[in-house]
């Protein structure tokens, strides 16, 4: 199994919690985590990427246990993530941001860099080239020298994705990659995600934008109040009553609910 999550549990002193989450992700698929606000999707991401330790349960990536690893160690074994609240390096240029993403493809350490020993320049050039490729691919080519902080929101999102891609991870966690993007950008993103899948990446997304999710995901896991309420293909999920209820609340006197919307 590529990624195996079993019985993941986390309590935050009452309000927010994740209870016994269990799911598997296969290599090469796009797996989506959906659910209403506060359902615990980001918490699952944080647990799986070492940002917070789980109370119970575990996760294995290609047989390696993820529990107890630090975020950078998890990145080291091939799992990368983006953040819902953008975590760009604001004072770094777009190019530098992406080059930091390629950190792991470099080998030169502090002293080698300080003295610029042989090989440092070559390695820099290599990383630079690769980063530029990724930047071009995501359409950020015009902004390479701008500090990340001055980019419009949509481009910042793309930059975050570019940054993780530059490090060629095997498994990618994307936390609401489409939020804040306009229609055109969202469409492009969806196509890009599909392309990534074709290129052999495995993707796990948290996303609110159902169109994108339904469009790109192979399988979907639905969370509500920290528990799994459904799992299946997009078609299965769309038919699931439990899911509808979670999103819409009780079907009460809402006058428009009967019309085109459901």
């Amino acid at each position, binding site marked *: 199994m590529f990624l195996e999550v079993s019985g993941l549990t986390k309590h935050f002193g*009452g*309000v*927010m919690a994740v209870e016994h989450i269990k799911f598997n992700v296969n290599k090469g698929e796009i797996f989506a985590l*959906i659910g*209403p*606000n*506060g359902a615990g999707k980001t918490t699952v991401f944080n647990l799986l990427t070492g940002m917070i330790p789980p109370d119970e349960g575990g996760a294995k990536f290609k047989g390696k246990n993820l529990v107890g690893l630090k975020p950078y160690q998890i990145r080291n074994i091939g799992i990368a993530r983006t953040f819902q609240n953008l975590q760009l390096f604001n004072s770094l240029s777009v190019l530098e941001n992406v080059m930091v993403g390629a950190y792991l493809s470099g080998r030169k350490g502090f002293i080698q860099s300080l003295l610029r020993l042989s090989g440092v320049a070559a390695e820099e050039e290599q990383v630079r080239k690769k980063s530029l490729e990724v930047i071009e691919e995501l359409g950020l080519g015009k902004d390479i020298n701008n500090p990340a*902080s*001055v980019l*419009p*929101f949509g481009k910042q999102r793309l930059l975050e994705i570019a940054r993780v891609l530059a490090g060629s991870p095997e498994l990618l966690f994307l936390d*609401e990659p*489409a*939020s*804040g*993007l*306009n*229609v055109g950008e*969202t469409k492009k993103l969806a196509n890009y995600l599909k392309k990534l899948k074709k290129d052999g990446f495995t993707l796990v997304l948290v996303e*609110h*934008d*159902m*169109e994108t*999710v*339904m469009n790109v995901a192979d399988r979907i896991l639905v969370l509500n*109040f920290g528990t799994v309420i459904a799992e299946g293909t997009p078609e299965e*999920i*769309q038919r699931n009553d439990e*899911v*509808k*209820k979670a*999103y*819409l*609340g*009780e079907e*009460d*006197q*809402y*006058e*428009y*609910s009967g*019309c*085109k*919307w*459901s």
Partner: protein
Amino acid sequence: MNILDVNGLKVFHGHAQALRGVTFHARKGEIVAVLGANGAGKSTLLGALSGIYNAKAGEVVFNGKPINRRTSGYIVKQGLILVPEHRQIFNTLTVQDNLLLGAFHRYNKDKSILYEDMERVLETFPALQGKEQQTAGILSGGLQQMLAIGRGLMANPKLLMLDEPSIGLAPMVVAEIMTALRKLREDGTSIILVEQNAAAAFKVADRAIVIERGQVVISGKPGELVNDERVQQAYLGRTRDQAGTVAMAL
């Protein structure tokens, strides 16, 4: 009559422009829903109206008085009250203290009135009754949200603004809160409701505006909006031919 007129409001977060000239109004006694995707600028709008963020440009007239560039203290005194996102109650204080602090700007006046008002708030949210001396932080999420709204009510708002009150709450609780909002409107309080949960908002709103990328892209009655193609494009980011999946967003 308009209780709130917002004209060309622009707000920057550092270099990023969060509001690009927002113009809308709210009439006395109505519930206006403000809709939009994550990051569209809804919370910034409420923050700017209540004096938390400074607007670079634009005009805000509340109840006949210009309030842009005024301190939040002044704005609160005028009766424009924000119930912020994530409730933001005072965790380590008691329920009663939280409520009384809501009336901070009129505390110097007759205290017995405050306690009467507190009784009224507790009637609006019966779930809080009997918990006055409990520490607010240990309440459930739903009760905390009620407390946050109740705290806002203690300020005697003419216009109450709520930022995502339904976040992280069970549908039952959301329904309870929405019922309370309807009752408040009947009592004459105007309300601005920011929601991502469009379904919940449409249920109570008289009117709705949709914000996208820092601008009001559309406004109208919920019934009109639902059928408006532009809304679906702007807020929901999709076209009607995918109506089947659209439902999932709600």
